[in-house]
């Protein structure tokens, strides 16, 4: 089940990433396709008492790349991170950092730096002493320590805070100090354990960008854990979706978004969630259609190939963003009786049925179009065939996997 394929780091992924997150004053780093593997986990099994948390996980992170572990609570992502850090030990499996087997090594011999969810700053030390802590333990010369602290402080804007105690800092400032503490260490790999979950929404968005910028500047290898799919999508070079102790899919964010391998991955990424309805395949005029819940959409024959059979039951998945007004083009799929409209300012989502007492569909409308739509309106909808996803109704696996 492992998806450790280097092609996830191919140029498409990189260019996709730069479209999403590149800012004018950060030079995109061009990487060669053959990159040394910085971190590898093979065949990890971990149980706590009777509960099996990780059930056979393989993970690879290439040098300098940003890998994000994402999944719902309890899926084992934090555990996997702690295993890489050395704070837990796996029942079976190996962990390699820069091709060195570190499975039996304690955290301090692994040369990793971790940013904790609760920042975990030393409460009795000032910011400067917090930053110094790890370096002093490794007997770094004082001049080196001073220069590294100055560098990190400049990078993160901590100059004014160096003599404060953690209890005198705000949440965002503490987060930056925690990152600074990791940065001065210059470790093999950075580990982030849901660092933004304790911040408010506005701050979260800001710090997210800072983290990515930092990563690019330092050319650092990073393993990042989050349950927030927006962070996952925006930060990752490689996305690893975990569910129930196993990796469901891994790859570049866009690829995982556009070609979900399982129903879980499909509904996990994207907000509002992909609408999943039970349906059946039909063939008309040599082309395949998927029908269900009032929806009647043409599917991409090339994509699904031999898996298409007329009469086969399938689960149809359509993202609200892909379901738009028919007048903008695309194949018509049905008429939506609008129940309610959610206006977000830049766009709006119309909730309704395509068929009486059928499942609810959500369609995206532009702000202008939404002005004339209200409860009770009838909207003809269309969706591009490439945006229709099909899954096996029993296993949840995509038909084109």
């Amino acid at each position: 089940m492992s998806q450790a394929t280097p092609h996830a780091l191919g140029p498409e992924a990189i260019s996709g990433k730069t479209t999403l997150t590149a800012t004018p004053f950060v030079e995109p780093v061009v990487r060669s396709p053959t990159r040394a593997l910085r971190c590898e986990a093979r065949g990890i099994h971990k149980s706590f008492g009777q509960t099996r948390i990780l059930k056979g996980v393989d993970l690879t992170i290439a040098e300098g790349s940003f890998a994000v572990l994402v999944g719902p609570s309890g899926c084992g992502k934090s555990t996997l991170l702690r295993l890489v850090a050395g704070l837990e030990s796996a029942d079976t499996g190996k962990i390699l950092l820069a091709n060195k087997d570190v499975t039996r090594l304690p955290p301090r011999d692994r040369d990793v730096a971790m940013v904790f969810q609760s920042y975990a700053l030393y409460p009795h030390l000032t910011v400067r002493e917090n930053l110094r802590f790890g370096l002093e333990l490794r007997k770094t010369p004082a001049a080196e320590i001073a220069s590294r602290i100055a560098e990190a402080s400049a990078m993160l804007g901590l100059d004014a805070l160096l003599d404060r105690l953690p209890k005198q800092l705000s949440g965002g400032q503490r987060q930056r100090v925690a990152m600074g503490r990791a940065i001065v260490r210059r470790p093999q790999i950075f580990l982030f354990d849901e660092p933004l979950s304790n911040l408010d929404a506005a701050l979260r968005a800001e710090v997210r960008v800072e983290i990515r910028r930092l990563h690019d500047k330092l050319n650092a290898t990073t393993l990042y854990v989050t349950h927030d799919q927006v962070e996952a999508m925006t930060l990752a070079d490689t996305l690893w979706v975990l569910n129930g102790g196993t990796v469901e899919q891994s790859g570049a964010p866009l690829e995982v978004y556009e070609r979900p391998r399982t129903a879980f991955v499909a509904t996990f990424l994207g907000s509002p969630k992909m609408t999943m309805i039970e349906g059946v395949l039909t063939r008309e005029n040599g082309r395949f259609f998927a029908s269900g819940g009032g929806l009647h959409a043409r599917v991409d024959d090339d994509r699904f190939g031999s898996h298409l059979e007329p009469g086969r039951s399938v689960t149809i998945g359509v993202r609200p963003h892909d379901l738009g007004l028919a007048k903008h083009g695309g194949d018509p799929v049905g008429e939506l009786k609008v129940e309610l409209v959610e206006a977000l300012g830049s766009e709006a989502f119309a909730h309704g049925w395509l068929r009486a007492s059928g499942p609810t569909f959500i369609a995206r409308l532009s702000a202008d179009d939404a002005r004339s739509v209200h409860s009770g309106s009838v909207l003809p909808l269309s969706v591009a065939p490439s945006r229709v996803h099909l899954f096996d109704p029993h296993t949840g696996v995509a038909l084109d996997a």
Partner: protein
Amino acid sequence: MILRLSPGRSRSPWAAFRFAAFASFIAAWVASSLGFASLAGCSEPPRGLVLWHAYRGAEQQALESVARDFTAQTGTLVTLLAVPYDAYAAKLEAAIPRDNGPDVFISPHERLGSYLANRLVVPANEAFPDSDLARYMQAATKAVSVEGRRYAVPLASKCVALYINPAILHTAPESLEELERLKGSLGPSVFPIAYEAQSVYFHAGILHAFGGQLFDGTTYAMVGPAAEQAASKARSLIASGVVPPEPSGDLVKQLFASGKAAAVISGPWLASDLGDSVPYRVVPLPRIESAANEKMRPFLTVDGAFITPLGDRKPEARQLARFLGSHESAITRRDVGKQDVATESAWSAASSDAPAAASGDGTGTGTASANANPPPPVATTAAMLAAFHAAASEAIPMPTSVAMRATWVPAEQALRKVLRGESAPKAALDEGLARYTDIMRPIGETPSGQAPSPLPIVFVIGLLLLAAAAYAVRRARQPYFAQELKASIPAYAYVAHSALTIFVLVVLPLFAGAALSFFAGTRESPRFVGFANYIEILSVRGRPVAEWLTHGSFYFTLAVTVLWTVVNIAAHVSIGLVLGTLLARPWLKLRAVYRVLLIVPWAVPSYVTALAWKGMFHRQFGAVNAILVACGVEPISWFAKFSTAFAANLATNIWLGFPFMMVVVMGALTSIPSDVLEAAAVDGATRGQTFRLVTLPLLKPTLLPAVVLGSVWTFNMFNVVFLVSSGEPDGATDILVSEAYRWAFARNAQLGYAAAYAVIIFGILALMTRTLGKLSPDKGAKT
């Protein structure tokens, strides 16, 4: 139930009703309690004569029987009250002056001096008329007389005699040297004689044989050639192994019971302890050849029936006292109570009244055995009592003077010094006299004999009041003070009752104690002396400055106390830290078991622990020396040197004190977030470095109050120091509190002096607490 004190709030009728109901409930409860109390008083049956005693068991039964006889004969009801011995004197002193106590009470005679000083007894007069002189033992009569007047009816006497083991000694030894010569021929671990050599009471036999005395009627008299010879003799007995070293009463009993001592010196109490299982025979104490063949003459204590001022008004009281000493009562008391009665007629008629002698071993009286073989020389109770009676005729009555009380401690200290071999008899005994003189020296007497003026005290108190007033004014001047005060009134209402209780129970006694410290003298004759007590203490009773750090001075004791506190706290905290950290680890599976085992030292009462440890440090029979010997090390005499005695105290107190620190540490450790420790681990710290650099600094805020508390408790740890080392050697390991205790209760009852000590200790601790409290500044105060 909130008592609303702020006016102007609307009181709902329901609230008013509740208040009224609550108030009436309280009033009814108080009234009914008072009513019951008074009713109980009204319905008490008529008490007749009240007789107090401190007897138990057989003696109590005998007394009750005699009282019943008295009631049958005269028709006067007698109510007996048994009072525990330890509290007896205190209860008498508390009750009688308030017209509350007994009409007659039975007590050992040696307290007569203090009874007279406290006006607790009246002359016996009709209870002991001149015609009765021949009735009682001469020595007993002498004991209950002061300056020719008789104050009690002598009832029974107690003294020590020689118990011999009939299996080892077939005849009574003629002299002490005869017993000494037995050494070596008895077997390896058998002592020829055992007695509590360190107690002056038991040493008195030897002292009196050489012609010395403890108290000559006015002052301390255990000095001079006679006393020195006696002390040397006692030392030689121990040095030659004839007598076991460091013997306690229990040890003596055990040695005799297990056959490890051929003879012991003890009193009638040993017989009741031994019971029927151990054969013994009682004979009077032997002579001492080297003392010109003089007999060993022990102290005699006489139980007498005293009449109180309350009983003075009732002629029946004197009748009762006289009856208690009568022939019939004496027989009852001798046979049932097994007392060595002072009534001579009970002994002269012994052959006819005493039960059939012989057979059996130490069993009860009055059962003539069917198979009466010619008896081996084993004691029956009657024979034993007769033997004690014979010994009593040679005994010297204990002096009754109040000043006698202060002779014991210096005499014992001197004796122990000699027995330990630390100094020559002359030097030690002279030091004893010097100590006694020092203790008895009156404090604060101005040359002209007038009482010192209270001016300095008034001045100081005035200053303190001024300072308090200034502080109060400064607080009141702060903004919002009036509003805060008004808003706090409900809070004060909640707190009022407990504040009042604490004030009455804690603050008032504190002030009373401080007030007491301005007086000197004994309880019977206090004198106002102003600050003289404090000056005495701080100037080390007038000794030259060069001697201020020698042993016996306040500063020496202070230094010992500080050393004691510092070492103890250091040990407590380290052990508590180590164990607390160990127990906090999740993988220690038997954590619950370890927890209980470690809390046990904390839960067992400290005096029980102290006594147990004291036994373990005994030089000959203690567990610690046994372990040392098993490891091939020489046994240590733990209480002979300061360092080892201090170590013994230390070991006991550490065992007692570390669970508190351990529990504090365990609690504090749970407050350290685990991810901070994980961050340290990821940052590269070993477990030791994490502990030192992260855990310890985070524990400090919690440890500091624990350290302050622990310091105060250890500074005042009376139990351990008093019970384990008792200040041995020679008062060197005494800390300030035990020193204060001795001044109050062992050295001429200098209560004011001891109160001054207590105030000084309080001052030192208050200072220490403030200093330690200032040690925890907030580190982030830079911004």
